């Protein structure tokens, strides 16, 4: 598959979402999202509070059943493609009482990964020490976010979905995480990052996806100031 360089991505993407609607009672968080996303790109998903960013990510991860519309990942539905998806939410998705290594060892079992090497490798790759005996609950916020990322990439997925990985993280740790993500994108992964701190991803992300009120209102190659006008269309 060739990655199109134009503003509008090629039709045959790794992820394709068509007319996605997600309704919560009297409120629709997604209101007909149609989009294609390409392999090996770094997408930054931006938008106001309540725009539907988290909901979109959860629908891509197969955690939220769409009310209507379809999500197709590598031609399958998200549940079938789950081995290719790494998901990192705002909460850590880790057991606070276990050490990082114990956590990963457990999640490795869920993916049928045997042996400790993979876990150790992943922990090292996010810049932590696999020998750390401290339970995750006692990690600092920055360390916890890294460990959470380690869990998401444990099974070497093709697609990474990260929800506000830098929120409540200090500037220094955030910078390091961005570097890490960049390396992974360069290694061929498709990366989605939801964030309110778009400036952190300037020059790193390949495409900025602007959401508003349950729609994708714009997709830009650069973090331009004119997205808000696009939003008003």
């Amino acid at each position, binding site marked *: 598959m060739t990655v199109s360089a134009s503003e509008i991505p090629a039709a045959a993407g790794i992820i394709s979402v068509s007319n996605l*609607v*997600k*309704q*919560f*009672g*009297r*409120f*629709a*968080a997604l*209101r007909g999202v149609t989009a294609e996303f390409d392999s090996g790109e770094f997408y930054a998903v931006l938008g*106001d*509070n*309540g*725009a*539907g960013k988290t909901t979109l990510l959860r629908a891509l991860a197969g955690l939220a*059943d769409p*009310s209507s519309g379809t999500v197709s990942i590598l031609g399958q539905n998200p549940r079938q493609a789950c081995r290719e998806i790494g998901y990192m939410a705002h909460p850590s998705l880790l057991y606070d009482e276990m050490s990082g290594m114990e956590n990963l060892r457990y999640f490795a079992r869920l993916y049928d990964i045997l042996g400790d090497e993979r876990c150790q490798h992943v922990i090292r790759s996010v810049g932590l020490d696999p020998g750390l005996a401290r339970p995750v609950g006692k990690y600092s916020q920055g360390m916890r976010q890294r460990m959470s990322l380690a869990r998401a990439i444990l099974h070497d997925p093709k697609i990474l979905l990260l929800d506000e990985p830098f929120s409540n993280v200090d500037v220094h740790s955030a910078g390091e995480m961005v570097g890490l993500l960049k390396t992974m994108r360069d290694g061929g992964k498709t990366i989605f990052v939801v964030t309110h701190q778009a400036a952190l991803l300037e020059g790193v992300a390949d495409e900025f996806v602007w959401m*508003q*009120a349950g729609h994708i209102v714009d997709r830009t190659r650069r973090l331009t*100031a004119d*997205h*808000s006008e696009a*939003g*008003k269309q």
Partner: protein
Amino acid sequence: MKRAFPIFAALTALLLAYAFYEAIWVAPMERTMGDVQRIFYYHVPSAWTAFLLFFVNLVASIIYLVRRNAKADAVAVVAAEVGVLFCTVVLVTGPIWARPVWGIWWTWDIRLTTTLVLWLIYVSYLVLRRFSESSQTPKLAAVLAVLGALDVPLVYFSIWFFRTQHPQPVIGGGGSIDPRMLHVLLINWLAFSCLAFLLCWVRYRLEWLERKVEEAQALESLLGDTVPSSQSAPVKLPPEKTQSSMGPQ
């Protein structure tokens, strides 16, 4: 279709009035119990109707689980609601009848107990629907309906073996019922079934409309913070930023 409803409603009302007349004035008086026995014509038809509705609920729930058909789910809710209503009628008329006849309000007779447990199960079904927060309420409710239905035969057996001293049914097993009484009973049952169907119809239409409205509202409402953001954040506050600026654009 539009006209069918009022016609059916009128027919049901007529039938109910006729059944009432039959039950109170036409049916013969029972020898030992006297007039209290006339509760019979409300008690038994309500029970039958309730059972029928619970069965409908089960079937609709299974259909929902298999097909994920929203209409089946709406039918399931409606059947459960109206079923609980009729079951309540049984549970109220029963003790009213029991008090003068047996001298007590309640006994752990097999029929009484299964009715009570059935009522409890379907109330818990309604409670679950009410308390459930997610958009997946129908799935959870359908699951509970299936488990609840599985429970009923087991309840029956556990009571059947245990509570031996239940009083004999007034009208002994089988055909010893006075044919005139049977006639009135059947008329009442027909009237009650029509009433139940009517209630279900109304509730179903309401439920369906409500869902449609919800869906439409959902796509329009801008409950979230959807003030168009601008990169050059205005440091000065707009003088009176009220709801209107967040209304539908």
